[in-house]
């Protein structure tokens, strides 16, 4: 099979999975009280239904839901149609990125500025930051796991191997929310003790809370290319945009603010991948070509790095996808502790009463799509590394 055929096949296989996830969210949505659904998908009050108070609260007292606007809203949404029609509409709208509207009284509306916004638009403001954080954490995980895993395999069952394993297990066992809060407090205490003056007075300013420094501490105040909800132009990625606009201080600061959250994420999920690197390295080290390499006099460091290391990388790549799905579920916690303006933060706000189900379902779908795409990328990289996959 040619490489591009493999890629196309892999991408086409992604569609059923995404439609399946949409089916699950459709089923879960059906379990919602009707009035919540009206709020989360109707949005603008132009249809006559004013989404101010959840109707379930009104419904309990009796009459208030029983007005023409309510039924008009139900009709507009097609909730009076047979389930199959609703399902088809739901899938069609989800695939065409019509993900409903944010609730006017929802917690997310406070930070999105306007009362009612399309969910897809709101999520698109927050997605780039999440991607940046995910990429940075993944980079950090690889940076830690591959050398330590190789080292553990070569010096198997020595104290340092045991120590590395205990350390990685402790990352598994420490709750992310405790670790993140303690890191934030500790770092703020350490850095803040000396350097609290502002950049406005041309002294360096550091803090770790929020995705941008206070605008009074940036030269020239808030840049014009950053919108009201921290959406940046032209690319949307804050670090890249800061570079493009030549504000190197701001670019450095955004990277600096990624470090602590990324360390917390990496510490939590490095255990799984470390184990795989170690095991695959152990397996490769027992193979014949390693003995041959040693026999012909290759230095031990060369054997480990060039011969064994490259071959054990294949397995590591496949686990990356799983790790990614694992740690992206923790983003709501990390982002809300560090107050980073990503999808996780807005999801964490939306799951608190009064709920904003538009954002909840939209963010879940978005995270799933990210995981699925990451898995496809992993498969493609794996096919490049190991020809047996695409030929077999």
């Amino acid at each position: 099979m040619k490489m591009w055929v493999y890629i196309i096949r892999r991408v086409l296989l992604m569609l059923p999975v995404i439609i399946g996830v949409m089916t699950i969210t459709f089923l879960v949505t059906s379990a919602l009280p009707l009035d919540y659904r009206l709020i989360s998908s109707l949005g603008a009050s132009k249809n006559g239904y004013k989404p101010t108070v959840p109707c379930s609260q009104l419904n309990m007292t009796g009459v208030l839901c029983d007005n023409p606007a309510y039924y008009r809203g139900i009709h507009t949404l097609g909730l009076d149609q047979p389930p199959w029609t609703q399902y088809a509409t739901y899938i069609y709208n989800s695939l065409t990125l019509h993900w409903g509207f944010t609730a006017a009284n929802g917690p997310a509306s406070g930070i999105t500025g306007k009362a009612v916004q399309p969910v897809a638009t709101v999520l698109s403001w927050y997605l780039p930051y999440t991607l940046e954080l995910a990429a940075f954490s993944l980079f950090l995980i690889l940076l830690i796991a591959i050398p330590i895993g190789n080292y553990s395999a070569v010096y198997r069952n020595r104290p340092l191997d045991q120590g590395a394993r205990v350390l990685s297990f402790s990352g598994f066992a420490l709750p992310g929310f405790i670790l993140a809060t303690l890191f934030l407090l500790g770092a703020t205490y350490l850095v803040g003790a000396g350097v609290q003056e502002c950049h406005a007075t041309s002294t360096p300013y550091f803090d770790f809370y929020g995705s941008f420094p206070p605008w009074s501490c940036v030269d020239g105040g808030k840049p014009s290319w950053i919108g009201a909800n921290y959406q940046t132009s032209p690319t949307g990625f804050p670090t890249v945009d800061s570079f493009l606009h030549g504000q190197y201080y701001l670019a450095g600061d955004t990277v600096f603010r990624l470090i602590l959250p990324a360390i917390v994420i990496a510490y939590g999920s490095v255990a799984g991948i470390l184990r795989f690197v170690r095991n695959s390295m152990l397996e490769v080290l027992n193979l014949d070509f390693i003995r041959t390499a040693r026999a012909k006099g290759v230095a031990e460091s060369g054997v480990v790095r060039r011969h064994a290391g490259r071959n054990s990388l294949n397995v590591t790549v496949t686990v990356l996808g799983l790790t990614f799905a694992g740690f992206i579920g923790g983003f709501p916690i990390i982002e809300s502790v560090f107050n980073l303006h990503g999808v996780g933060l807005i999801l964490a706000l939306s799951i608190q009463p009064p709920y904003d189900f538009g954002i909840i379902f939209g963010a879940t779908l978005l995270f799933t799509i990210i995981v699925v795409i990451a898995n496809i990328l992993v498969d493609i990289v794996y096919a490049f590394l190991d020809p047996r996959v695409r030929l077999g």
Partner: protein
Amino acid sequence: MRRTFYFLSRNTLAMIGLSILIFFVFVAVYSFFDPSSDTQLETFCGEYGGPGGGTAFNGTAGCQLVCTYASNGPAPGPNCYAVDYYNPGFVPPTVDFAHLKGGPVPLGSLTLNPSSPYFYSVYQGELKGAPWSLGISAGIVLSGAAIGLLLGSVAGYSGGYTDEFIMRITDIFLSIPGLLLVLVLLAVLGTHFTSLTDRVAVLMGAFIITWWPLYTRIVRGQVLVTREQKYVEASKASGARSWRILGRHIVPNSLFPVFVQLSLDVGAIPLLLGALVFLGFHIFPSEYFPEWGSMSAKAIQIVPFQLTACISTSCEFPWWQLLFPGLVIFLFAISVNFLSDGLRDALDPRLRR
């Protein structure tokens, strides 16, 4: 079996993990015979007369003791009153953290420590929380493993369209990041249920729905290997029915990876429960329900406030409220990890050497 235990007993870390785990199980059993907290809580709630008087921890209504913190510390009496959490007029207690004074609760002390934001002492909370945490974790993981064992062995043994169908559904569930599905399910279903038993059932259901696909995939992979073995062929040749082959040969022989994964997952669940509480889900009827995960989440949430209060007014920082719940949850998770790693080594003949 005996060989497995022999190899396991040679592994120091696994033995440490096992002994910590046994200790926690012992604590959970002991908590039912502990003379301290239940009676006292009931007296409190009964005395100050809430609608659900005295039943907060027996599972029906959300009777809760609310203390307003006066300037010289709280005193049960005029400053404390019991409320029903589901009362529409319920206002969460505001706690002035500057007044949280008092030393760490000595282990073994049976007195209610009124200066803690829990209205039981940390010691009592951890004790009372043990059966809840262990029970919820074990229940979730065992049910998930049972479903996975059933579906995985059916998929792996029958093959064909059944296999395709089950595994595609498994793929869909596996691609949703774990905690997110729980969040969505709890946000939706949580609007319907109020009583403690219902909410714990919904919680466990949400976790089971996220947990079974992993086991299904593991079991199926193992069954695919096992069903090609000679003894299965021999059994088939001697005329055994397929349910007998499944039950007697295939399932018992593909159990071991499930054990390893199961022991790993038990430790993760209190952490995830804590994460849910940290994100603001009121899973349990009482804000200060004795469950390990929620106790540590509540403790870490108030730390910044405590710190600022203690910096401005120089009070003693109540470190024990964070340290002991954190330590318990950490020890539980890491002991389970050690045990699972030891099991993996002991069950895999290639790694035994």
